[in-house]
């Protein structure tokens, strides 16, 4: 993540992009020019320019904290830029509210459908602009007729009178799209629209997107699923750490290159670096302390299997949304599963709960330190002993002496910097909060430690300390699962790396293969276990793009077994989309 690389990446794009369209480039519909946005303590966007051309589908990609959401929010009037300007059809505009952007023809479809669940489909589509009869009453008949026509145009047959929430998420999204079209949107922004869709629904969505495309509507498409991007998008913009890394035609940008730009590692350099650490040779042969098979959860996990040996650090790689956090949560009993088995020390966990997992010796350091980790109003001492409280008590009364002993040991060992153990943990720095949480888990003397982004958002010094500590813990015989979005941290810290994609294991790197290059290659692959050659993948992707749509079942649900298909949303009503 060093700045020089970013600069190198930035200088790269004009090369392939510039000369390829020597003729006048298509007119831009929506432009952000030199846009910057700062929030307290962070620069979310730093001089980013983004151009959406008429009639194109433009992919916007980047990892966590890249600035995608901020850019979208600026484009759609939620935020106003601190610097730079927006241009719509070549003219500078300033949206003060999301409503103004909508009026100007920019519609947004968020991950979570932002319609009114209890209202009918038709009312949702005509919300705020209902057709009126001569008496000024809502003309329901016309509304229902036009809704049916509109949805029919997308191949959706559903009763316009049905309350929206009785439809499946996919259909709800179609309704949102239909609304966008019916308000004469010129630009539709879609933020990870497929993250909660069934493969079949994805096909319908893509068909609708194709329709919009044909009508000349421009789309901004945010997704982490490489397959989808290469299938439907024309151009791509890559953001990283709030900066523009690349803009160009997608077909000129190889998958591996795209992923390397997202993650901030230049491939040429990466390849030269050797594997940092050799695998713990003793660990490689030991009996696994934890074995998980077939971990499944609708939309999130699809049969993840892995094992962890004492003394090893197993890296869990994958792009955003690949199921890393969910896997860790599942192992820690914090995610209800549809199926799967977890065995610890030869004994199968019968109940899946946090308490059961902790009793079995599994500890999870959660990704979201503030929401899931610290109890801000309590002291450092109380936060450390939180999980161990029953062990440090006698007959239900807490023993202050025992607590102090444990707290003292861990504050020294982890070098937690606090005014005193009685200082509120909410007042500490991020790094020290993270150490407090590590101490909370270590004082339980776990056998398996699951670390979800243990160094995110903490300063460099604390980061190095935490990384060293992880090595030490593994050397002491703990089995560690390490999740990190930073390739470098993963490759240097882990002896072995399991890569996830779309909630399933996509590959495993062992021994000398634990390199950033190899990891990038697996991350960028299309099909599970595909050969590590970029050329072959692109060909496969091309073939898929060329393939005609109407075979939804054959959709490349990367790793998704047919088990997904019949298992529809329990709360949702019957599917209404016409599969043709």
């Amino acid at each position, binding site marked *: 993540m060093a700045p020089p690389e970013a600069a190198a990446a930035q200088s790269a794009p004009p090369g392939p992009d510039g000369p390829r369209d020597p003729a006048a480039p298509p007119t831009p519909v929506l432009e952000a020019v030199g846009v910057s946005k700062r929030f307290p303590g962070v620069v979310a966007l730093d001089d980013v320019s983004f151009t959406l051309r008429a009639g194109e589908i433009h992919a916007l990609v980047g990892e966590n904290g890249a600035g995608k959401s901020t850019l979208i929010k600026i484009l759609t009037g939620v935020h106003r830029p601190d610097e730079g300007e927006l241009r719509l059809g070549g003219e500078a505009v300033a949206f003060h509210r999301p409503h103004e952007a909508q009026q100007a023809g920019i519609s947004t479809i968020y991950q979570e459908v932002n319609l009114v669940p209890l209202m009918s489909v038709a009312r949702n589509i005509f919300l705020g602009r209902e057709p009126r009869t001569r008496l000024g009453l809502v003309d329901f008949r016309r509304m229902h007729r036009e809704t049916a026509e509109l949805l029919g145009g997308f191949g959706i047959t559903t009763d316009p009178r049905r309350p929206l929430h009785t439809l499946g998420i996919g259909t709800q999204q179609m309704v949102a799209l239909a609304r966008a079209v019916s308000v004469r949107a010129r630009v539709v922004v879609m933020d990870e629209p497929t993250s909660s869709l069934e493969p079949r629904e994805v096909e319908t969505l893509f068909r609708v997107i194709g329709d919009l495309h044909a009508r000349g509507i421009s789309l901004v498409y945010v997704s982490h699923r490489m397959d989808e991007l290469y299938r439907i998008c024309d151009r791509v913009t890559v953001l990283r750490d709030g900066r523009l890394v690349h803009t160009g035609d997608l077909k000129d940008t190889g998958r591996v290159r795209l992923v390397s730009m997202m993650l901030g590692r230049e491939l040429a350099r990466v390849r030269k670096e050797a594997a940092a650490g050799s695998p713990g040779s003793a660990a490689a042969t030991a009996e696994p302390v934890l074995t998980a098979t077939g971990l499944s959860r609708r939309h999130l996990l699809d049969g993840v299997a892995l094992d962890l040996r004492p003394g090893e650090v197993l890296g869990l790689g994958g792009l955003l949304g690949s199921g890393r956090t969910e896997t860790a949560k599942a192992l820690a009993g914090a995610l209800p599963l549809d199926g799967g088995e977890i065995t610890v020390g030869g004994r199968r966990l019968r109940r899946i709960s946090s308490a059961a997992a*902790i*009793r079995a010796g599994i500890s999870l350091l959660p990704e979201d330190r503030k*929401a*899931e980790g610290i109890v*801000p109003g*309590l002291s450092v001492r109380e936060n450390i002993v939180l999980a161990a409280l*029953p062990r440090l*008590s006698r007959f239900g009364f*807490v023993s202050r002496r025992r607590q102090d002993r444990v707290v003292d040991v861990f504050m020294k060992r982890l070098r937690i910097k606090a005014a005193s153990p009685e200082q509120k943990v909410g007042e500490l720095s991020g790094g020290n909060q993270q150490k407090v949480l590590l101490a909370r888990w270590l004082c339980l003397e776990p056998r398996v430690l699951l670390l979800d982004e243990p160094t995110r958002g903490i300063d460099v010094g604390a980061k190095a300390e935490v990384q060293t500590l992880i090595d030490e813990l593994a050397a002491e015989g703990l089995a560690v699962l390490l999740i990190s979005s930073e390739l470098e941290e993963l490759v240097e810290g882990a002896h072995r790396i399991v890569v996830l994609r779309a909630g399933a294991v996509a590959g495993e790197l062992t021994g000398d293969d634990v390199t950033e290059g190899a990891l990038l290659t697996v991350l960028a692959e299309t099909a599970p276990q595909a050969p590590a050659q970029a050329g072959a993948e692109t060909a496969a992707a091309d073939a898929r793009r060329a393939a005609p749509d109407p075979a939804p079942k054959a959709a490349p649900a990367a790793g998704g077994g047919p088990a997904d298909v019949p298992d529809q949303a329990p709360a949702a009503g019957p599917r209404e989309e016409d599969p043709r």
Partner: protein
Amino acid sequence: MTAFAFPRGLDRPRIADALQRYGVYAAVAALLVFNGAFTDHFLTADNLRTQLVQVAPVVIVALGMALVIGTEGVDLSVGSTMALSGALLPLYLGYGLLPALLVALLAGVVVGLVNGSLVSLVGLQPIVATLALFVGGRGLALVIAGGRLKQIDNTDLLSLGTDSVLGVPVVVLIAAVLAAIVAGLVQRTTFGRQLVAVGGNRRAAALAGLPVRRVLIGVYVICGVLAALAGVLATARLTASDPSSLGNLMELSAITAVVVGGTPLTGGSVRVLGTVFGALLMQLLHATLVTHNLHDSTAQMVQAGIILVAVYVARERRAR
């Protein structure tokens, strides 16, 4: 609220912090000083004893409420629970005081189990979950009592309401002992610390393997039992069981005491002594205004002002 515009240059959050922490004690002290100077016969043993006897049931209920609020919840059913225990009491007094007392307290346990289960297992919002028994509990009490007021003639029970030990009424002693027990529970027991953690960050508590459901159910059970006990004591003092009016608006008095005492409604902190003083403050304030010939409704408006101040201070403090 212009009186609350802090002077410029001062650290508003810190003032709010101090005000939330110590404001209630200062206010009680100020009221006592004011009355000592301007109200005849206020600082007499007799009057103070009367005030304490009157506030004791509120304190007992508020102790349970403080625990519930500490978990980011609220229990609206406490007044109805008082009525329920008051209605059950005369039915079993024939077997003696102890069995009748146990039955009455058992009613509190059942109410707490229902509330706690609705909140923790079903996942209802506490305000909705406890609203059910707020309405239903009093109805049940009226059915049990046959809709009538019943005179109590059991001398053991009546002595609970009238006796004194060394000049301190038994009711006040019970409230004081319970306050000490609840304070110990919060500060010294595993349950108490887990309660505070659950209120402070429920997701973190669950991920740390804390028995979140058990803690929540336990908290509502304790609140129910305390309310039932308050119902027994209030019945003893009234020498009659009156399910139609016993404990009316008690939930609001208890919540007021907790909030004025500096416990944030957002959970994660329980201030037991503050709660006791919160109840005292409201009681003394009311008594002061009434003895100065202000109408009851005026007193209520002043109390409303105090509540607003307490909530404002809590908000100001969180805003840092």
